[in-house]
């Protein structure tokens, strides 16, 4: 076990419940590295999660954890942040949890620009319940509930979250763990609503049943072909590829808890 993990992971809860090769494990691995670099103490942070494979992630961390109803992770995190504004709150959520069932909470939290870090692990499918189609499933992909191909267009999350008012948006992939760690770190340092979309392959449900990959390694190879890391040399993703990096950052808008504290002070005077 690496040194960051030894510092922040509950050994008694291991091994992870995730299937062999699940990308969510790499997200946890990168997350503990990021918080180790930021040097966050045990009482400075709390994690909130909803329901789904991805929402198991905070269970293994040595932080207070709120495991809530399906889709309501962001709503509960908002409440927690409002009463404890000095703590960092991180939300671990999946694509079905965050965008499907809790979609309304997502846009309203973004509108308020409340200081949360939302790590959304997108595996394009409802993995825990057996592979039903999710709001992020690509058009034409066959799943358990769309055997003839998905006939709905997936959500385009970047324009949605940005238009709703989020001030930080990063996209990362578990096939690039260093960039993932940096995205998490920057998102946690950002004051305001930060949304990190992580592409995290599901080798069991999606890999075996939908894409018919035989091993996790094959699926990771395929994912690596789909993405391109954006930099100054490559400012935009080529046609058909998914760009990784910090897509948007805005420090001009005020944070919700600051506004609340100011209003409270005005009312007391």
């Amino acid at each position, binding site marked *: *076990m690496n*040194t960051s993990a030894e510092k922040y992971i509950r050994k008694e809860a*291991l091994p992870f419940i995730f299937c062999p090769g699940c990308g969510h494990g790499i997200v946890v691995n990168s997350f503990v590295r990021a918080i180790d670099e930021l040097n966050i103490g045990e009482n400075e942070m709390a994690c909130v999660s909803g329901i789904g494979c991805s929402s198991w992630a905070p269970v293994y961390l040595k932080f207070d954890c709120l495991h809530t109803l399906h889709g309501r992770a962001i709503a509960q995190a908002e409440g927690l942040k409002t009463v404890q504004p000095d703590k960092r709150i991180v939300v671990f959520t999946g694509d079905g949890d965050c965008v499907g069932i809790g979609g309304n909470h997502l846009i309203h939290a973004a509108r308020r620009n409340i200081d949360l870090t939302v790590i959304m692990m997108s595996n394009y499918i409802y993995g825990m319940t057996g592979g039903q189609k999710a709001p992020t499933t690509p058009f034409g992909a066959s799943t358990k509930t769309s055997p003839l191909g998905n006939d709905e267009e997936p959500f385009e999350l970047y324009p949605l979250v940005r238009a709703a008012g989020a001030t930080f948006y990063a996209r990362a992939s578990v096939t690039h763990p260093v960039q993932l760690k940096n995205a998490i770190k920057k998102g946690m340092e950002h004051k305001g609503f930060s949304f990190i979309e992580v592409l995290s392959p599901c080798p069991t449900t999606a890999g075996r049943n939908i894409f018919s990959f035989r091993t996790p390694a094959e699926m*990771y190879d395929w994912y690596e072909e789909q993405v391109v890391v954006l930099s100054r040399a490559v400012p935009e993703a080529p046609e058909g590829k998914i760009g990784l990096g910090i897509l948007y950052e805005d420090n001009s808008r005020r944070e919700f808890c600051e506004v609340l504290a100011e209003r409270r002070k005005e009312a007391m005077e």
Partner: protein
Amino acid sequence: MNQILIDRDYCKGCGLCIRACRQGVLAMGKERSKGDYLMPYAAAPEKCVGCGLCELFCPDVCIRVEKKEAGHA
């Protein structure tokens, strides 16, 4: 020589560390982990450059690379 330590208790034998290693140090072994998965092992430890990619890619956080100074090998 760098040492690659793989925790028997937590490994699930997904093989992502073998994919991640650009030097071809790791290979799938015959030994089984506590969860009854086939485990990878350092087949060619002398090739290890200590980059730590296997550590980064491990979804079960069970790999640790102990770096040793080149002179002490």
